[in-house]
C-alpha cells in the first residue's frame, strides 16, 4: 500500500529531472544516476490525495441531502441492535431461592428468619390489632412471632387446598412491582388466575359495566377430560327437564291449538336456543378465593370481597389491619424472599388441591363407566334370560 504511493511519486519525479538536465544542456553522470533513497524514518510521509483513483466524487446537492440523511439514519438504526448483541451472550439465570415450589413442611423457622419474615415495621406505625402476632420490639421495629406465622401459613395453605379441591377459582393479586412476577408464577404453577395491575374498583360489586363489554378469547377447560361426555349428557337431560317444566307451566297458553307433543318440541327448541346464546355470551365469574400479596395497598379490593362474600388470604405486616382479610399471614411484606416463600407455599397448596380433585373425579368417572358396563351386561343378560326367568316364575 505504501509501495504504490512511492511509485507514483517516483513516476512523476522522473520527467521533471530529465527536463531540467535537457535545459541545462549538460549530461552529467549524476543526472543519469537513480535518485537517492529517502532517509529511513520511523513514520512514513502522508501519501498524495489522488482524486483520479475513482473519478470525481459526486456532488452533494440539496436534492440528495434528505435521502442521504434518511438512508444513514435507517442503516444506523438497523446496525445498533446488532452492536447491542456484541460483547457477550446472555442466558437466563435461575435462582432457586426465588423459585416457587415450597411445601409447607419445608418451611422452617430458620428459613423464615433468613428470609427476613420476622422484621416488622417501625413501632410508631403499628396497628394494635396485630398485638398477638408481635413477639417484641428491637432497634425501633416490631419483631413478628414466627411461630404464629408458621401456624397462619399452615392454616391458610389448608384453606387454599380445600378451595382448590372443591374446584374453586383462585386469584393471586400482586400489585407491587416486585410481586408481579411472583403472582404470575404462582398462578401458572397452580393453574389458577392472577391480577398484576390495578384492581378496577367495582369488579365484584358492579361487574356489568366494567366487564360486560370486554371481548375475550377464553376456552372452557374441563378438570378431567373423561368427565366431558357425562357432563354433556347431564346438560342435555337438564335441558329436557326444563322444557318439560316450561310446558307444564305455560305451554297451553303460549302454543294454542298445538298438540302436546308439538308444544314440548317447541319448548325444547327454545331451551336449546337459550343455551347456545348463553354459551356464546361473555361469562363473568366471581373468584372463590383471593390471595393478596400486599393487602395494605388493596383496601378497595378487600372491601369489595367483604361485600361480595369472597374469602381472602393476605400477607399482613405490623402496620396492616389483620381484620381486612379472612386468613391473615403475619409476615414482612417488604422482603421479596419472604413474600415469595409464602406465595410458593400457597401455590403449592392450590396445586395439591387441584391434583386431589382430579384424582377424585377420574375415579368417579371410571367407576360410573364400570357400573354402567356392569349394568348393561346385567341388563343384556336379563333381556336374554329375563323372559325365560319370568316364564319360569
Amino acid at each position, binding site marked *: *500500500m505504501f509501495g*504504490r504511493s512511492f511509485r507514483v511519486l517516483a513516476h512523476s519525479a522522473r520527467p521533471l529531472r530529465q527536463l531540467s538536465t535537457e535545459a541545462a544542456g549538460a549530461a552529467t553522470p549524476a543526472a543519469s544516476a537513480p535518485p537517492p533513497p529517502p532517509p529511513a524514518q520511523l513514520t512514513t510521509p502522508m501519501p498524495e*490525495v489522488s482524486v483520479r483513483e475513482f473519478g470525481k466524487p459526486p456532488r452533494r446537492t440539496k436534492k440528495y441531502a434528505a435521502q442521504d440523511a434518511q438512508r444513514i439514519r435507517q442503516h444506523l438504526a438497523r*446496525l445498533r441492535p446488532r452492536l*447491542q448483541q*456484541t460483547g*457477550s*451472550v446472555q442466558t*437466563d439465570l435461575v435462582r432457586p431461592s426465588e423459585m416457587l415450589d415450597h411445601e409447607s413442611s419445608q418451611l422452617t423457622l430458620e428459613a423464615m428468619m433468613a428470609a427476613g419474615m420476622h422484621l416488622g415495621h417501625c413501632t410508631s406505625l403499628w396497628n394494635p390489632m396485630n398485638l398477638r402476632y408481635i413477639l417484641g420490639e428491637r432497634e425501633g421495629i416490631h419483631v413478628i412471632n414466627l411461630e404464629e406465622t408458621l401456624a397462619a401459613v399452615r392454616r391458610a395453605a389448608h384453606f387454599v387446598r380445600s378451595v382448590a379441591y372443591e374446584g374453586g377459582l383462585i386469584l393471586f393479586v400482586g400489585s407491587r412491582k416486585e410481586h408481579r412476577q411472583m403472582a*404470575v408464577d404462582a398462578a401458572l404453577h397452580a393453574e389458577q388466575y392472577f391480577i398484576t395491575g390495578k384492581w378496577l374498583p367495582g369488579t365484584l360489586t358492579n361487574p356489568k359495566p366494567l366487564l360486560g363489554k370486554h371481548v375475550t378469547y377464553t376456552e372452557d377447560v374441563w378438570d378431567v377430560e373423561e368427565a366431558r361426555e357425562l357432563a354433556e349428557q347431564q346438560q342435555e337431560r337438564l335441558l329436557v327437564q326444563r322444557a318439560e317444566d316450561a310446558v307444564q307451566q305455560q305451554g297451553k297458553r303460549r302454543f294454542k291449538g298445538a298438540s302436546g307433543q308439538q308444544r314440548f318440541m317447541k319448548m325444547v327448541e327454545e331451551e336449546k336456543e337459550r343455551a347456545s346464546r348463553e354459551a356464546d355470551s361473555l361469562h363473568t365469574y366471581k373468584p372463590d378465593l383471593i390471595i393478596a400479596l400486599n393487602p395494605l395497598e388493596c383496601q378497595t379490593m378487600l372491601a369489595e370481597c367483604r361485600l361480595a362474600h369472597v374469602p381472602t388470604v393476605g400477607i399482613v405486616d405490623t402496620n396492616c389491619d389483620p381484620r381486612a382479610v379472612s386468613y391473615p399471614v403475619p409476615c414482612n411484606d417488604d422482603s421479596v424472599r419472604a413474600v415469595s416463600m409464602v406465595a410458593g407455599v400457597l401455590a403449592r397448596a392450590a396445586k395439591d388441591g387441584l391434583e386431589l380433585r382430579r384424582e377424585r373425579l377420574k375415579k368417579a368417572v371410571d367407576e360410573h363407566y364400570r357400573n354402567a358396563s356392569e349394568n348393561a351386561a346385567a341388563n343384556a343378560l336379563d333381556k336374554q334370560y329375563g323372559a325365560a326367568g319370568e316364564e319360569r316364575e
Partner: protein
Amino acid sequence: QRVLAVAAARYHQPAMLPYKPENGLAPFLSPQSVDFLYNMRQIELINNVNRLSEGTELESKTLMNVITDSALDPNKVPLTNNASQAWNMDFFLQSLTDDPRPLRDDVRRTIAEHFGSFERFQETFTQCALALFGNGWTWLVQSDNGQLSVMNTFNAGSPFTAIPSVKNAVPKGASYASINRTTSRRPFTRLTPILGLSMWQEAFVPDYGIDRETYVSRFWDVVNWSVVNERLANTRSGSRTDA
C-alpha cells in the same frame, strides 16, 4: 416461561468467534496470544461484569446498555470499565478473520469518499494508533449524520461514552417541539463504531515486544472486510445500492 415484561436475571458469557481461537490469527496474532485474549482475559472480564451487576437493576441488561447506564454513576466505575473492555474486546475479535480476503471495492470507495483515499485512511488510523500513549483503543466511528472519523479511547474507554453531548447545541429561537427532543437529554454523543483496534500492551507485547508499527501494519492483513462493509452506511448520494 416469563409472561410479563418483568426482567429475569440474565448471565453473560463470552460470545462465539467465527474462527477457532486455538489456531490464532496469522500473521497478526499467534495462537497463544488469541488464546490468552479470548480464553483468559475475556472470561475474566465477563465474570467481573456478572459479579458486579448481580443483584442490581443492570443484571438483565445487554453489555452495551450496562456500559451506557453505569457510565454516569461514579460508584459503578469498576462495572463500567469491565463491561466496556469486554465489549471492546469482543468487537475487536469479531472484526478479524483467519481467512483474509482482499479489500472489497465498495468498502474502499466508501472510505475513500470520506478520507480522500483508502491509503490516507489507513495512514490516519495507523498514526492515531501509534500516537496512543499507554493502553487504549483506536476506532473508526460513524456519527449520526454519516461522517466517518478516527478516534482514540484510553484504557477501557468505550466509543459510546467517549464524547459528552453538546448541551448548548439547541439554536436560538428553538420551537417548543425541539426542546423535548431526545438528543439534548442523551448524555453522550451517539457514535457507531465500525472498526476497532486494541492498543493494549497485553495484545501486542507477547508477539511484537516494543514494535507497534509492525503490529498495526499486520492488523490490516486480517481485518474482515465483509463485516466492516455491513457496518458501514453507504453515504453516496444518488446511489442505487441500499445500505
